[in-house]
C-alpha cells in the first residue's frame, strides 16, 4: 500500500513537472511582448520597456526563466501578477476560500441530488425513471452560464429570494450568497451523476449475483443496498472524481456569470489581459487538484472493490 502510494505521488509530481513545463513553455510561445502589457497602455519608452524586462527576467533564456519560476513555485512563490502588481500566491489565497466554498457547496448538492435521483430512477422504472431521465438529460445539457442567467432572473431579480452578487462572509451569509452559483454549477454535474448512478445500478441489477440474492429470499431493499448500490459505487466514484476536477474549471464560468471573486474569475480575468504569472499558477493548481482527485479515487477503488487491491500489487 505504502509503495503504491509512493509510486502514485511520484507520478503526480512527474505530471506536475511536465504540466508546469508545458504551461510555462506555451506561455513563452505567446506572440507579443509581455512587457508591453506591463506598461498598462501608456507610452512605452524604450528605457521603461528595458526596465520592465529586467524586472521580470524576460531577457533570460527560457530554461533559466523556467528554473527560476519553478524554484519559486516549490517555495510557494508563484511570481508577481503583472495586472495587480501583487504576489500571485496572495491573490490566489485571497480568492481560494470563495472558490472552495462554492465547489464544496456544489459538490454536496451534486452528491445528494445526483445520487438520490439516480437511485430513484433505477428503483422506479416507468414514469419516474422516464421523468428523471428527461430532467437530467436537460440538466446535463444546460451550460452553467445559461443556468446562471435563468437563476438570477428568476430568483434574485423577480422573486428577490437571493442576493444578486457577493461572496458573503460567515457561514449563513455565505450559504445565502452561494446558493444560486452552486445551483448553476451543480446542474450539469448532478444530472451526469444521476445518469451514471442509474446506469451503474441498472447494470448491477442485471447481474446474476443480484438474482441469486433474490433467489435466497433476501428482501428487496437489502438487495438494493448491499448488492446493487454497493456494487455500483465503483463507476459512481470514478464519475465523482472527474466531477470534482471538472467543478474547479467550471467555477471560472459560474464565478464570472455571478460576479463572484474567486480563483476561476481570477483566471478568466487574467487571461483577458494576458497576466501570465496568474494564468500559470491557477492552471497548475487546477491540474494539481485534478490529479489529486484522481489519486483519491484510485485509493478508494480498492476499498470498494477488493479485487483491485491485489491487482495493483499492494501487499495484503
Amino acid at each position, binding site marked *: 500500500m505504502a509503495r503504491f502510494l509512493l509510486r502514485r505521488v511520484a507520478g503526480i509530481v512527474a505530471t506536475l513537472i511536465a504540466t508546469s513545463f508545458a504551461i510555462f513553455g506555451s506561455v513563452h510561445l505567446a506572440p507579443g511582448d509581455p512587457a508591453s502589457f506591463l506598461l498598462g497602455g501608456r507610452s512605452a519608452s524604450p528605457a521603461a520597456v528595458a526596465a520592465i524586462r529586467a524586472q521580470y527576467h524576460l531577457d533570460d533564456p527560457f530554461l533559466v526563466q523556467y528554473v527560476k519560476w519553478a524554484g519559486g513555485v516549490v517555495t510557494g512563490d508563484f511570481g508577481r501578477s503583472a495586472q495587480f502588481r501583487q504576489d500571485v500566491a496572495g491573490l490566489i489565497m485571497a480568492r481560494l476560500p470563495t472558490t472552495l466554498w462554492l465547489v464544496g457547496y456544489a459538490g454536496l448538492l451534486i452528491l445528494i441530488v445526483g445520487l438520490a435521483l439516480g437511485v430513484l430512477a433505477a428503483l422506479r422504472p416507468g414514469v419516474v425513471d422516464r421523468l428523471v431521465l428527461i430532467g437530467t438529460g436537460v440538466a446535463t445539457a444546460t451550460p452553467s452560464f445559461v443556468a446562471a442567467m435563468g437563476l438570477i432572473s428568476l430568483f434574485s431579480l423577480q422573486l428577490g429570494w437571493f442576493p444578486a452578487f457577493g461572496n458573503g462572509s460567515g457561514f449563513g451569509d455565505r450559504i445565502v450568497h452561494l446558493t444560486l452559483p452552486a445551483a448553476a454549477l451543480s446542474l450539469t454535474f448532478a444530472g451526469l451523476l444521476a445518469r451514471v448512478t442509474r446506469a451503474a445500478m441498472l447494470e448491477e441489477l442485471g447481474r446474476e449475483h443480484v438474482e441469486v440474492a433474490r433467489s435466497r429470499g433476501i428482501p428487496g431493499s437489502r438487495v438494493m443496498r448491499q448488492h446493487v448500490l454497493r456494487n455500483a459505487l465503483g463507476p459512481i466514484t470514478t464519475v465523482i472524481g472527474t466531477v470534482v476536477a471538472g467543478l474547479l474549471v467550471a467555477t471560472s464560468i459560474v464565478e464570472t456569470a455571478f460576479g463572484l471573486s474567486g480563483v476561476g474569475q481570477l483566471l478568466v480575468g487574467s487571461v483577458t489581459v494576458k497576466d501570465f504569472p496568474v494564468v500559470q499558477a491557477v492552471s497548475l493548481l487546477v491540474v494539481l487538484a485534478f490529479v489529486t482527485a484522481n489519486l483519491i479515487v484510485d485509493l478508494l477503488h480498492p476499498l470498494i472493490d477488493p*479485487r483491485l487491491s491485489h491487482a495493483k500489487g499492494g501487499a495484503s
Partner: protein
Amino acid sequence: MTTPLLEIENLNVQLAAGKAARPILDGVSLHVAQGETVGLVGESGSGKSVTCRSVLGLFPEGAQTCGSLRLDGNDVLTMSPTRLRELRRHDVSMVFQDPRASINPLRRIGDFVTEGIRAGGVPRKDALKRAGELLESVGIRDPRAALRRYPHEFSGGMLQRVMIAGALAGEPRLLLADEPTTALDVTTQAEVISILTDLRTERAMGMLFVTHDLELAAAICDRVYVMYAGRIVETQSADGLFGRPRHPYTAALLASTPQLDSDRPPRSVPGRPVSLAETSPGCAFAVRCAHARPRCTEHEPVQREIDGAHVACLRAEELIND
C-alpha cells in the same frame, strides 16, 4: 410414494405480449420426493433453467404462467411475496452454474453464506458461527479465515463449495442444482458432486439436478426427466433411461454422446435443437427424428406410461422392438 416434496403440474410459461412474446415451457410436469435425486437433462434452450427457477418463483420478466407448482402442497405461483421469501430462505435453495458470477465479488464470503439466515433474523455472531460449520462441511479448510476472504481469492471449485454452503444455510429440504459443475474440471466436478451426494443423504434433501451431461445424470440420479423444446419428452429411472431409452430423442442423445467405455463412435443427429417458440405443430423432435412419420407432425404426442417409463412419442410402443 407419499406426497412428493415438489410437484409441478402442467406448468406453462410464456413471455408476455410485445415483440418478445413467445412460449418457453409447455405443460411441464415433474415431481421430486423427499431424499430423491431427480435429473433434468436436455440440450441448450430446452427450458431446464426456467423450470428450475420457477420452483423459487423466479420467472423471466413479464412472464405469464399457468399450471400449478406446489411445494409441500403450497402453491408457489400464488404465494404472497413474504411467504415466497420465507420459502426461498428456508425450504428451497439453488446452486447456480457459474459460482463466480453468482457471488457478489465485492462482499466477503462470510456475508454471502450468512446473508440468507441473517435476513431471517439470526444475529451476526451466530450466523457466522453457523457459516463456519457449513464451510467445514463442504470441505473448506480453515473456514474461519475463509469467511473473511473475498470470492476472487478462491478457485472456481472452492467457490462452488461456498455456494453450496450458502445454499445449505437455510437447511432447505429441496436443493435445486442448475448445472452446478458445468464450469468445473472433471476432477473438481467429482469432488463437488461427492459433496452434494453426501449432503443429500445426510440431510435427506430432495434434489433437482439439472445437467446436459447424460452420463453425469445417469451416475447420480434416481430418476431422470428429459426435456426437449420446452416439454418433457421422457421420464424414467436412471438405469431404465440408459438401458432402454423409450423416446427417439433420448436415444439419439445417448447415441451422440461419446462413450469412454465403448468403441461405438458418437452418432450424430441431423438438424439442431430448437426452442419451444420455433416448433411447428406436432412432435417438436419430428424434423430431426429418424423414426418420424407424417402423423408425428400432425398430433402432439401425449405422455404415456410404458413399462414404468413416461414417454411422449406417438410411436413409442412400435419402437420398443427396434
